[in-house]
């Protein structure tokens, strides 16, 4: 019970700080919209081409926007000298991980919820399907689970903003590919059964990396 109280306190603190400054949300949102507009200029006129590359565009946008958001997750703590404040508090390192992860998950899901209608508008695609919502939520969970761990790892390096994508993107390739393939099927109006194998990979990735990240976070943050 205390674990979840601590998690809630950390998530709430991050949400409060972000609502006040809108530092991460505004930067990530502008970046996301710019990428969508650039893709629109690149592929926009030909609807056939758009249908072929739509899911790829969607996940490239979400992946890079996610990296941008995750980069800030621990940098703010580090820059303000608060990481050590959390580390001397009587809470488990795992509670710090889960609290930070839920905070990032919330922000990235909000960005995605805003970006999807914009994507639909620019590319004339029906993105409002339960299938695509499920794929987006499940993929974002796995993405943020790994990203939070690597963000904590990168924060102690000198070139921290470059280190995160270099370390992190190769690890999330399986879940991004699965999300692209599953989204492609969802956008084509395929049934749930045709998505199953890709969803299984995404869920397996989520479970494995949530558990692994939860277990190794204490070692990453301490040294």
């Amino acid at each position: 019970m205390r674990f979840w109280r601590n998690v809630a306190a950390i998530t709430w603190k991050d949400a409060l700080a972000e609502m006040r400054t809108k530092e991460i949300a505004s930067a990530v949102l502008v970046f996301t919209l710019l990428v969508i507009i650039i893709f629109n200029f690149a592929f926009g006129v030909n609807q056939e081409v758009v249908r072929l590359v739509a899911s790829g565009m969607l996940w490239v946008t979400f992946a890079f926007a996610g990296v941008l958001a995750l980069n800030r997750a621990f940098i703010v703590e580090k820059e303000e000298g608060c990481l050590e404040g959390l580390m001397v508090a009587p809470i488990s390192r795992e509670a710090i991980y889960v609290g930070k992860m839920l905070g990032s998950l919330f922000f990235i899901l909000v960005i995605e919820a805003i970006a999807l209608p914009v994507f639909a508008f620019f590319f004339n695609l029906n993105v409002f399907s339960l299938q695509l919502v499920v794929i987006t939520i499940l993929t974002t969970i796995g993405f943020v689970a790994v990203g939070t761990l690597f963000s904590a790892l990168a924060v102690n390096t000198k070139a921290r903003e470059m280190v995160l994508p270099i370390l992190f993107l190769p690890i999330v390739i399986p879940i991004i590919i699965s999300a692209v393939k599953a989204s492609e099927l969802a956008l084509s109006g395929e049934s749930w059964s045709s998505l199953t194998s890709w969803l299984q990979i995404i869920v397996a990735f989520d479970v494995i990396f949530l558990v692994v990240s939860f277990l190794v976070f204490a070692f990453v943050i301490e040294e």
Partner: protein
Amino acid sequence: MAKAGSVSQDYAIEIRELTKSFGHNRILRGINLEIKQGESIVIFGPNGAGKTTLIKVLATIITLSSGKVVIDGLDIKDRAEEVRRRIGVVTHQTFLYQNLTAYENLEFYSRIYDVPELKKRINEVMEMVGMISRLHQRVGTLSRGMQQRVTIARSLLHNPAIMLLDEPETGLDQQATSMLWDAMQTDGQKKRTLIFTTHNLERGFEVGERLLILDKGRIVYEGSRQVLDLSALEKAYKSNTMVSA
């Protein structure tokens, strides 16, 4: 109170053969130290002596490489979370979120320290450090000295029996420095155990009962204020740190 190993109950902190390395770089090289309940220890030392690393190990921010540290009867390796509940930490870093108000910062820390009646306690500690009028001001808009006062309030929220102070006077004026020591030395009923690191020999001499000099990760000198004067301490500091310079 929980017990660990063969530790005497008289000691608030017991350190045995403590070492800490970062890669091949040995920062602490076999520290042995016992600190009694309510005792004030000052650790002097030049830059790179290992003072901050020692405080970080005691605060459980970093893990020790070898040896044993027992705080309030609890081995810090096995029971770090319980140890953290009993210590307060003040360093030159404030541990405060610049975009939150002083109240929001203290509310956040009160929640993770399980402070009962948190509003009342926040008001008490902010009153104690003379910052009650700035309670709802964003920390980022406060001066460095004011932020350090809020930091002191933060460290006192859970009324810890042991305070670890790593150059806590950063940014504080004379009045705030005396306030710091008034607030730190007792919890209202009994004396707190204090470990304080500083470069300032004069200030350290004023507040410490036992005076240590750390150099290259070893305690190279130990003396008591009762048998020393400031000039003797200065002489000891020069001779013990010049050798290694």
